[in-house]
């Protein structure tokens, strides 16, 4: 019997014939933390018997979740992480570098890697054909110390994607549709493996958006094959030597297969307070929006900013609405400036935030007021997520976000883009 992508990677890395349900010990090719999970991880690491990192060059700290820091406690946490990096020689990406998952994709991850991070959206790196999953501080501290971790090999769901995206329908709409269909716990402990005729035509940016949200259906990983798109992406990032092809075996065993024809999709929105509460954007015209946020590890990439800029060009955001835009990384910001995508956003009245997590998790740069509603391109709309349990978060694509910024209410981008 053939193997899924997860079984192939975990077999190769553990040296065992790894099959769904098996427990394996695997070396880790990258282990990382960010500034809200890092301090506890470092303390757990210090509580361990070994005080040296197994591999400083494969250990990374990211200061992105509250960066630059909004207050002294977090500033002191940042100092604590910088000191740990200086002591151990691990990689440090400081404030302004960008969101950890975007930087992992740009600079560190490759096909066949086993990646563990103290952040649930570590699954993002599955876009490059890595087995990447989020864990808590104790597991990450041990992975930093031993250079390996234990994993249960997940059963896989095959997500068979066909058709071509219509104009103004994006990767975000595909993954919102999938989460709506599976439910917020529909893939708990499972791998979501993406395949089908549409995959070779999906850009790395689109793949990162889809893989990023696998966790919102409870999945352990969201994984794509490594193909020519992966090869070209790595080459462009000057990491071409990291590429090798990786496909599942044709006779791999899947627990379940879901077919999605993207040509039938329309712009979608996840309503408060769960990500699986999905409805067409066109049915939500009555929802007034006070803040639009375009950014995050889900949708803060060059293609996302370009799409927003095209919709906003030569127009103005709705009076009284705040449009916040945070590029996912410094590279994205530079490329967006070079591509001319920042000017239309600023001319429309948008507020440019530094590369990082920005308003996503309610620590700074756009905390919502009581009763306010935000249309965000992020991945989570839990109650209180953006800093206020008395506020409401709707999730949509960059196109839906830009269209909504122009009208002040939730808007199907096909309406303003005509």
């Amino acid at each position, binding site marked *: 019997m053939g193997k899924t992508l997860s079984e192939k990677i975990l077999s190769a890395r553990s040296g065992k014939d790894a099959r769904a349900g098996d*427990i394996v*010990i695997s070396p880790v090719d990258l282990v990382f933390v960010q500034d*809200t*999970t890092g*301090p*506890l991880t470092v303390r*757990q690491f210090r*509580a*361990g*018997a070994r005080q040296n990192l197994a591999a400083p060059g494969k250990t990374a700290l990211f200061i992105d*979740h*509250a960066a630059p820091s909004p*207050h002294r*406690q*977090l500033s*002191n*946490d940042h100092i*604590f992480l910088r000191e740990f990096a200086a002591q151990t020689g691990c990689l440090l990406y400081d404030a302004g570098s960008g969101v950890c998952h975007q930087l992992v994709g740009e600079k560190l991850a490759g096909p066949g890697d086993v990646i563990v*991070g*103290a*952040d*649930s959206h*570590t699954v993002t790196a599955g876009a490059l054909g890595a087995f990447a999953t*989020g*864990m*808590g*501080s*104790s*597991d990450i*501290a*041990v992975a930093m*110390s*031993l250079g*390996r971790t*234990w994993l*249960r090999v997940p059963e896989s769901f095959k997500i068979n994607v066909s058709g071509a995206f219509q104009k103004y329908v994006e990767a975000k709409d595909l993954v919102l549709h999938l989460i709506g269909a599976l439910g*917020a*716990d529909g893939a*708990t*402990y499972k791998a979501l493996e993406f395949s089908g005729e549409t995959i070779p035509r999906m850009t790395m940016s689109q793949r990162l958006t889809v893989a990023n949200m696998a966790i919102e259906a*409870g999945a*352990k990983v969201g994984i794509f094959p490594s193909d020519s798109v992966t090869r070209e992406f790595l080459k462009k990032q000057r990491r071409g030597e990291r590429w090798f092809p990786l496909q599942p075996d044709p006779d791999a065993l899947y627990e379940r297969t879901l077919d999605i024809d993207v040509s039938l999709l329309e712009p979608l929105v996840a309503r408060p307070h*769960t990500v699986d509460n999905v409805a067409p954007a066109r049915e939500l015209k009555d929802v007034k929006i006070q803040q639009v946020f375009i950014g995050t590890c889900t949708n803060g990439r060059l293609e996302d900013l370009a799409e927003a800029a095209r919709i906003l060009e030569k127009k103005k955001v709705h009076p009284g609405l705040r449009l916040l835009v945070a590029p996912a990384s410094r590279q994205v910001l530079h490329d967006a400036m070079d591509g001319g995508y920042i000017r239309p956003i600023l001319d429309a009245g948008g507020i440019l935030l530094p590369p990082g997590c920005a308003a996503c*998790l*309610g*620590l700074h740069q756009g*905390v919502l007021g009581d009763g306010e509603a935000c249309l965000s391109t992020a991945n*989570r709309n*839990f*109650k*209180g*997520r953006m*800093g*206020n*349990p008395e506020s409401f978060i709707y999730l949509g694509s960059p196109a839906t976000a830009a269209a909504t910024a122009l009208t002040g209410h939730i808007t199907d981008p096909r309406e303003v883009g005509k």
Partner: protein
Amino acid sequence: MKLSGRAFKFGDGISTDHIIPGRYAGLRSNLDELAKHVMEDASPDFASKVQPGDFIVGGANFGLGSSREHAPLVIKMAGVSAVLARSFARIFYRNAINQGLPVLICDTDRISEGDDLEIDLPGGIIENLTTHDKIAFSPIPGVMLDILNEGGLIPYINKYGDFRL
């Protein structure tokens, strides 16, 4: 080992943001202060009512969302002796075991707010003393039971030096 206390009942889909809201990230290096906000966005007066030994009883997909290990940590710091749910999100489940907090999968529809419970961990049985009901819970997988029995992952690794599968 028997655990006993009262049940605090919650619904389906209790997220890590309900358990410990992200807006308190500034307190993550001050755990005593952080723990005062446990379950705040699900039940604002939980922290003032919970007594050592009590149980959190949830529905489906308990602990979904963030990887923050502070979620099971503040629950444990509040004195909660176990979390019971119909199902758990993957990362929360692993984090709870790594913190030495028992997480038990069972039919929580048979438990109501305020019920007195007694749990026989090795025996796999929850006794609802209020309703005289006996509820079985799913066994904790082997490697995780070993970690739980050592009080968490760090003590486990400090004792054995490596994973023992």
